[in-house]
Every structure is written in structure tokens, then in C-alpha cells.
């Protein structure tokens, strides 16, 4: 059974705005081929103000698809079209207090239905710009398309590099076989063969100086931790969140996650990634914890 949040369950068992609106003037029909889900979103838009006065949905799909559709209708009501378009799939997931990584595509389907409905209202053709690949790394929710693109863009050769760039494979190891298959496929495009024995050479410029064991001063340590967090930050900000160093107590590093990241399913995964990077940088084991856990 999926571990759905109470909000997901509530929106599934008691869907809001179910059914098509009779007096709709905007309709968006989208589907996610990867799991066969489909959604029709109908909106009633005030032509004067472009405010969405009412919304209705019809969904063929699983519990989280129905919950995402229901959440979406609640979120868009009362907003102008432009305000509504600013809603990201992460916003939908956050509204639902998170979705399992395998189910994030349900929130993507919601956002796309919205774009399609607005395009329909404005008499435009909506074309889907987003390609969804099979989910490879379940720990960090990384799909095949993302891995392929990253391999091509950075000429990656090894599983370790893929993990370094995308996080995929950085936790339970079960997807290493899948990542190797993708590497084999992508490398073959340029006539190269994937060699599992390729030594781990990350771009020379990036190779870190060997860490001098244990002899960092407290200030040096904190500076290094700050530096790692600064490097990771743009990635988190791209996901509409933020991270901030709060305190360092011996082996415990306390950080504050804000915005889209706080409370989201991925928060734990994000902290895991940050921890990994700090461990690499300091050459010692530390634990990254949310600031809320720090004893007062």
C-alpha cells in the first residue's frame, strides 16, 4: 500500500469539485501515458477579469491522481488565469502534504491540465513540452530522461558520475543496473562502449584535494560546510525551496529547509544528498538534521 498523506486520502475519499462544469468556457484534456491516467479539467472563467470562478474535474486514475485533480480545482478557484499558471506541480504536491516519488507524475498531470485549459480558453494550441521517462532511482525520484540528458550534457562515463550529477543511485544501489544500461545506450550513440572498470575520474577541475584527516579547526570545518551548502543551494532554489545552515554541534549539522522543500516528501532525500556532500568534503562522518530537531 502506498503511504499517502492524510490530505491525499481526504481529497480521494471526498473529492472536491468532481464532475464537469455545465457552463465551462475552458477545457483541458491530458493524460499520462506512463500509467494510463487521464484528466479533464473544466473551468468557468470571468471574461472581464480572467478570474476562475469555478472548476470541475473528471479523472480516470489512481487515488493520488484523483486527489491531485481535486486539489488543483481547489487551488485555482478565485485566481486569475495568470496566477493559476504560476502553480507548479510541486505546489500541488505540497498542497497535498507530499506524494510518493512514484506518484509525482499525478501532480504533473494536474499542472498540464491547467495549462491545456488556459490554452483552450485563449484559443491557443497547447503542446506538451515535458518528456517523462521511466522512474529509475526511486530513492531520489530521478527518471531515465533526466539521466540520459545529464550523461550527454556532461559526457559522463560511470555510475559514480551519474550519482554525483543527478543523485540517482546514491542510496540503495538497486538502480545501478538500470543506470549502467542507460550509460551503455547513450555511450553507444558516440561509438563508445560502457566500461564498468572505468576509474572514477570526475572532471579534473572538480577533483578535490585529498582531505587532511581530522585536523580542521572548528572555523575551517564550518566554512567548508557553508561552502558545500552554497554549492547545493541553487539546485534547491530551482525547486522553489531554500536551505540555510543553522548550527554545527560536533558531528551534527543542523540546517533549515524552507519553501517548497519543507515538509515535502523529498526533504529527507535532500538532507541525505547534502549529508553525502559534506561527508565527502570533510572526510569525516557527520549527520545532517533539520533544525527543528536541535535540542533547545
Amino acid at each position, binding site marked *: 500500500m502506498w503511504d499517502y498523506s492524510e490530505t491525499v486520502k481526504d481529497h*480521494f*475519499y471526498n*473529492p472536491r469539485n468532481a464532475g464537469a462544469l455545465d457552463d465551462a468556457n475552458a477545457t483541458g484534456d491530458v*493524460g499520462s501515458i506512463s*500509467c494510463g491516467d487521464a484528466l*479533464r479539467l473544466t473551468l468557468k472563467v470571468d471574461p472581464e477579469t480572467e478570474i476562475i470562478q469555478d472548476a470541475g474535474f*473528471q479523472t*480516470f486514475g489512481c*487515488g493520488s491522481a484523483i486527489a491531485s485533480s481535486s486539489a488543483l480545482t481547489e487551488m485555482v478557484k478565485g485566481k486569475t488565469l495568470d496566477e493559476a499558471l504560476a502553480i507548479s506541480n510541486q505546489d500541488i504536491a505540497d498542497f497535498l502534504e507530499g506524494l510518493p516519488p512514484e506518484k509525482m507524475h499525478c501532480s504533473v498531470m494536474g499542472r498540464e491540465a491547467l495549462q491545456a485549459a488556459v490554452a483552450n480558453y485563449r484559443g491557443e494550441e497547447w503542446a506538451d513540452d515535458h518528456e517523462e521517462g521511466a522512474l529509475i532511482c526511486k530513492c531520489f525520484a530521478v527518471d531515465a530522461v533526466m539521466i540520459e540528458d545529464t550523461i550527454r550534457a556532461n559526457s559522463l562515463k560511470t555510475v559514480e558520475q551519474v550519482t554525483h550529477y543527478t543523485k540517482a543511485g546514491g542510496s540503495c544501489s538497486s538502480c545501478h543496473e538500470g543506470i549502467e544500461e542507460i550509460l551503455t545506450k547513450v555511450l553507444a550513440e558516440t561509438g563508445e562502449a560502457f566500461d564498468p572498470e572505468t576509474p572514477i575520474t570526475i572532471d579534473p577541475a572538480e577533483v578535490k584535494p585529498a582531505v587532511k584527516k581530522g585536523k580542521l579547526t572548528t572555523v575551517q570545518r564550518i566554512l567548508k560546510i557553508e561552502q558545500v551548502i552554497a554549492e547545493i543551494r541553487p539546485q534547491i532554489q530551482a525547486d522553489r525551496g531554500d536551505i540555510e545552515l543553522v548550527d554545527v554541534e560536533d558531528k551534527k549539522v543542523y540546517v533549515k529547509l524552507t519553501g517548497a522543500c519543507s515538509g515535502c516528501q523529498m526533504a529527507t532525500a535532500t538532507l541525505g544528498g547534502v549529508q553525502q556532500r559534506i561527508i565527502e568534503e570533510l572526510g569525516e562522518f557527520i549527520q545532517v538534521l533539520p533544525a527543528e530537531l536541535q535540542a533547545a
Partner: protein
Amino acid sequence: MTKGIYLDNNATTMVDKQVVDEMIPYFTEQFGNPSSMHQFGDKVGRAMKTARAQVQALIGAEHESEIVFTSCGTESDSTAILSALKAQPQRNEIITTVVEHPAVLSLCEFLEKDGYTVHYLKVDKKGRLDLEEYKKLLGPKTAIVSIMWANNETGTLFPVLEMAELAHAAGVMFHTDAVQAVGKIPMDLKKTKIDMLSLSGHKLHAPKGIGVLYLKRGTRYRPLLRGGHQERGRRAGTENAASIIGLGLACDMAKKHMEYENSCVKAMRDRLEEGLLEAVPNCFVTGDPDNRLPNTLNIAFEFVEGEAILMLLNKQGIAASSGSACTSGSLEPSHVMRAMDIPFTAAHGSIRFSFSRYNVMDEVEEVIKAVPPIIEKLRKLSPYWSNGAPVENPEAAFAPTYS
């Protein structure tokens, strides 16, 4: 936990209370290693011998020594297929079907990467095989044929007895994954040409984590796990004595209930089928209804999605399972439904109800009452459904842009 109605017995079964009681002393009193020379284990060897005879009786094996205890059905499947390849290095082809359990399919896909050729027999819309196609594939390069006896999703039975004869005539080894069939339909292996058979304890009211590989005397064999001399060196590792003893008793009980399974359990399944088909419009039975396990009903509810059905059933304490993509982590719709060419608007709404002898007819009537409103509720949400009927020409009326 509230009692609930458990109709997911093809996934796993409750361990019979008598089986548990039988096992307990082997954890705390007779816990000795059966190979040891002292009082803590002296009864274990004898009890395991009884268990072996009980398994032998259920499947009709000729010799007790043909029973090899393993850790699960998956291990038995892997052992059988890998053994056939290792023992016959000059043969590099496997024949199986597209609807096997992942225990066989994933292994075969993996072996393909290693250079083996795997022939996957297709099925028709009722999930049946084409034996003419099969006959043509049997040849001097075939190392093993592995065909499931009963399908776990639809309960459809394959003609394994006849297929084993054909393999034998062609000089090819035959394995069957009978994890779903053992204990539900009678079998007498000594009268068949089946060389190897897999079974799993947790499908017949024994614990999880115990299985058997039946290995017909004279079959060429290579162990998967090497080490100690347990199971005559055919499967090393200290025996899971308590579970073996539990499985023995479970097999004995299954044999005694075989008649009941094929009359009373079947009657409950048939009543559920009849009740649901009558009460719910736009649904149909998948697989081959005339040729299936007595306990399994797989029914596809069109225009609704399985996970949503299961969540609403679960809320009323009813447990079943689905071939929908969304209930598996993979997002792939069931390969069995796809192989039978079930349209995706129906495949996603396929629900499997699987019974055991612990179900009662009252539960069936409760499920017949519970299901129709659930389907109706979900259809009201479905873009393929309007005013109590499917939209006309659903594929055209609702043609979403897919990503």
C-alpha cells in the same frame, strides 16, 4: 486490526493456527541443528522426514528424495532454470510464456543479456497458448521449457501435462512454476513428464520464506547454493526446520481439503462472479473462465482505475488486488492484462478476488453489496463515463494529449 474480508489469497495466505502450533516447539525446544548429534535436535530430523512425505503426497511425487526444500518459490524457479543451463552447456535456448510471474520473467530477461535466447509464447485474448507455436520451437538447442501451471492474476491453467509430454518427446527438460496451483488442484507428478516443479509455502497456509523444488529422479541437476550437505547437497544452508515442518502439515491439510476447494471454495468464487456481473454494468471476466483455478476471479471494471477501487474496498475492510499500473511501483500496467490485449481502459480496472477455505459465503454477499456503489462513485469521476453509461465512442469523445 478488524477482521475484514480477505480475498487476496493468491498474494499470500494466513498461516493456519494448527500449522503455527506445530512449528512452535522447533523454535524453543527442538531448536538443535538437524545435523547435530544431541538431544536438542534429535526429533527434528524425524519431523522433517514426515514433512517431506507430506509434501510428496500432496504433489504425487514417486520418491521422497525428489523433494528439495528451498527458501521460496522464486528460489525454486531460479534454481530450476539455472540448473538446466549449467547442466547442459551446449543448449542455450529457453521456452517460456509472456505471462509468467516475474520470478521467471525477470530471470529470463537477465539471461538474454548474457546471450541466451528466450522464446516467449504469446497468449490469446483469453490468456491461452498456441501449442502449434510451442511444438515448432522445441529443438536440440532448447535447454529448458518453463511454463506456469496456473496464472497468478487470472487463475488460467496452462496444459502443462501435455506440454511436458511434448518436451519429453523432443528430449527437452520441462519445469513448471506451480506456486499457484499446488494445493488448489489435484496433481500426481509420478504420472507426468514434468521434470521440475516449484511451489511456495505461503500460498497454501504455511509460512512465507519456505518453498520446494520438485526434482524428478534422474533429472540432470546443478545446485544454486553450494556449501553443506543439506538436502543431499542439492541446496546447501541449514534447513529452515520449523517452516519445513509447518509446510508439511499445511500440505497434508491442503490434500484433505482438495475436494472442498474444488466444490465449496469454487462455489463462493462462482457466486461472486455471478453477483458482480449482474450488479455492475460494463465489467467482464478476464482469462479463461472455463479453465482456471477454483479460487480465482479476475474481473475488469471498465472506465475506472484499480487502485482507486482497492482503496475504497479497503475502507470497508475488503482486501483484493489489481492489475492496475498504479498499484505497482513500476507504473507498468499488468503484463498479463497487456498480453491478453485487454483495452487499457479495462486493464487498469482489473481486480483479482482470490479465495481460500477460510472464506465464507456471507462474505461473498457482503462484497457483492459493496462493489457496485464503489464502481458507480468512481465512474461519476471518470471522463469516459456520463449519465450512467460510457460516453459514446469513448476513445474519440475523450482523447487527451498524452505526455
